[in-house]
């Protein structure tokens, strides 16, 4: 689960990480009031959307006067921000963070995440802040420093201090640096983060270490331990169909094509999209109804696909294990009867109770195109949606 920069900064503060003074606003009037309250210029206006690359896209501006605050805030609020992470559709800016401008001496990088290879939490720091860390890793890997934390002991004091020193935070800065690194690690563990990142971490000309930006991604599997964090979800930032799906316990991800896919199991769902593409079609979505889906969940999944007006045909590919094919067939016939099925539907059923399932579909009177196997199913649906 992603959250906004301003939310991440609030959380960081509670872990002893210093952040610039600032306020979240939603209108230019509020922006003016916030700038006045800060009582200093310049101020920085930062668009709050879930995407990186905001600065380059014009979502981060420096204002040197109240007039500029008014003007720039009006510009940014409501604008469609298109960054390399939002895709061409972009994101509408609804929230703005107004912050004090600071005189920066040094930009650093700090992050914590799970290293899958080493199966440990890693704390990563670099002297090259403000850049894409992937770029740094490629160009100058010697400028990235890492500590892999033993979960039996946690991040030890000397390890955090060592990283601070490697970042060049010596003398009077080492205490602030160590505290920031320890704070970030504690946030990572205590909030069940998938990733917590500060890029850049800055040293100001007057000798303060602050998180100028903040990014936190919570691990979905850990959310049950943090009912207080679930309220931080900004539903406007989510794909509405993905949101509905998640509430139903269905894994759904919208992509750009016109063939709706309904599959059980994540691996098979991905493979089904792949084979559709291989035979010249374009999948409209990834959809995994899960291993033990009920009849109702299947109907819900079916509705979800049919609500997508781009969908010109549907491919159902089920390998019944726990999920019985007769249950699935009942779910499909129910949903298809309720919502008038106006697009071609190809169904491939295999596994537990497959013959019963096929029988139910046949008896339903629905115009279903049966398929013998996965390749046959893909070929048939691609054919059915291509213009004659």
């Amino acid at each position, binding site marked *: 689960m992603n959250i906004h920069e301003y939310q991440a900064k609030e959380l960081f503060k509670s872990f002893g990480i210093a952040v610039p003074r600032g306020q979240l606003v939603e209108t230019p009037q509020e922006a003016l009031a916030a700038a006045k309250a800060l009582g200093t210029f310049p101020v920085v206006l930062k668009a709050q959307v879930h995407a990186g690359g905001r600065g380059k896209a014009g979502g981060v501006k420096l204002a040197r006067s109240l007039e500029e605050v008014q003007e720039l805030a009006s510009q940014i609020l409501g604008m469609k921000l298109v960054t390399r*992470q939002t895709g061409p559709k972009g994101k509408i800016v609804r929230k703005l963070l107004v912050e004090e401008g600071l005189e920066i001496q040094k930009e650093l990088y700090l992050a914590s995440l*799970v290293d*899958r*290879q080493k*199966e*440990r*939490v890693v704390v990563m720091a670099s002297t090259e802040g403000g850049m894409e860390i*992937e770029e740094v890793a490629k160009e100058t890997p010697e400028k990235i420093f890492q500590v892999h934390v*033993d*979960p*039996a002991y946690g991040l030890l004091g000397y390890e955090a201090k060592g990283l601070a020193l490697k970042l060049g935070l010596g003398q009077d800065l080492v205490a602030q640096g160590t505290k920031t690194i320890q704070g970030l690690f504690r946030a990572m*563990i205590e909030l*069940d983060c*998938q990733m917590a990142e500060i890029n850049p971490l800055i040293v100001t000309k007057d000798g303060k270490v602050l998180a100028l930006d903040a990014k936190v991604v919570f*691990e*979905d*599997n*850990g959310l*049950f*331990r943090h009912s207080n964090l679930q309220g931080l979800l900004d539903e406007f930032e989510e794909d509405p169909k993905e949101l509905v799906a998640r509430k139903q316990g269905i*894994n759904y*991800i919208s*992509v750009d094509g016109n063939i709706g896919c309904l*599959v*059980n*199991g*994540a*691996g*098979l*769902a*991905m*493979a*089904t*999209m*792949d*084979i*559709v*593409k*291989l035979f010249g079609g374009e*999948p409209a979505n*990834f959809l*995994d109804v899960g*291993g*033990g889906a009920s009849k109702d969940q299947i109907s819900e999944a079916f509705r979800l696909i049919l609500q997508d007006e781009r969908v010109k045909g549907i491919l159902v590919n089920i*390998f*019944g*294990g*726990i999920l019985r094919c007769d249950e699935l067939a009942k779910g499909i016939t129910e949903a298809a009867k309720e919502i008038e099925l106006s697009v071609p539907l190809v169904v491939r059923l*295999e*596994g*537990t109770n497959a013959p019963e399932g096929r029988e139910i579909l046949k008896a339903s009177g629905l115009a279903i195109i049966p398929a013998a*196997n*996965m*390749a046959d199913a*893909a070929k048939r649906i691609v054919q059915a949606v291509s213009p004659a």
Partner: protein
Amino acid sequence: MAIWVDENTRVLTQGITGRNGAFHTRQCLAYGTKIVAGATPGKGGETFDGKIPVFDGVHQALKEVEAEASMIFVPAPAAADAIMEAADAGIKVIVCITEGIPVLDMVRVKRFLVDHPAILIGPNCPGIISAERSKLGIMPGYIHKRGTIGVVSRSGTLTYEAVYQLSALGFGQSTCVGMGGDPVHGVGFIDVLKAFQDDPETEGIVLIGEIGGSDEEAAAAFIKENVTKPVVAFVAGRTAPAGKRMGHAGAIIMGSSGTAAHKIETFERCGIRVAENPAVIGEAMKRALDEAKR
């Protein structure tokens, strides 16, 4: 032979009284798995289906019965603890089916297993089956035929698909291992490949990977150096968009790493046959075996 489990393996179910635990314990019993005990806290002293003794925990069970393996259906909040409990009690093969365990819990589990060695399969996986002998997991048993192909996979239903194709073409299986789709998990491709290479019954290997992480790349390098048996690989997620978690917590392309294209390219560079699409995994194995015979 087979790897890790066979008809003699004695199994304990952790979470035997839950809905899934009970259902699949019955399915496994029907398949022939030797399930000797169950564990659910607070249910010690009861009997499951009138024949299997239930204990409050694994240590308590092992005072009364002998078991080498356990199968875990405990809900996610308590599942990591269940794994560590089994390992501490001396269980040698732990199969964790539970989905949704927090990754930081798994980081602790893996650290724990350094001092308490056990073979952990999963979590978030279909389990392990040695065809027609023993099944510890949730896969449909009837698609499996006994034979000489070892299957290892990060996915559930896609594995069933591959097994179904293999059986239909007359290729039975020695053992099938579903490692699970979580970023931090028990045995990996290399552990299973090593076991298949050493297993005299296994003559060919199917490896099913997916986007995310770099386990497939590591497996490719390992196969090139250490595996003499024919291997066929398939990687799901060629069309997956970057930055989206595709159902499995581990199936996510981060930046430019973890793509299917890179994994496929690595397999091919290491001389490993890659099935072009999921419908031809069985055929690809057939061709690889034919080639190896020549």
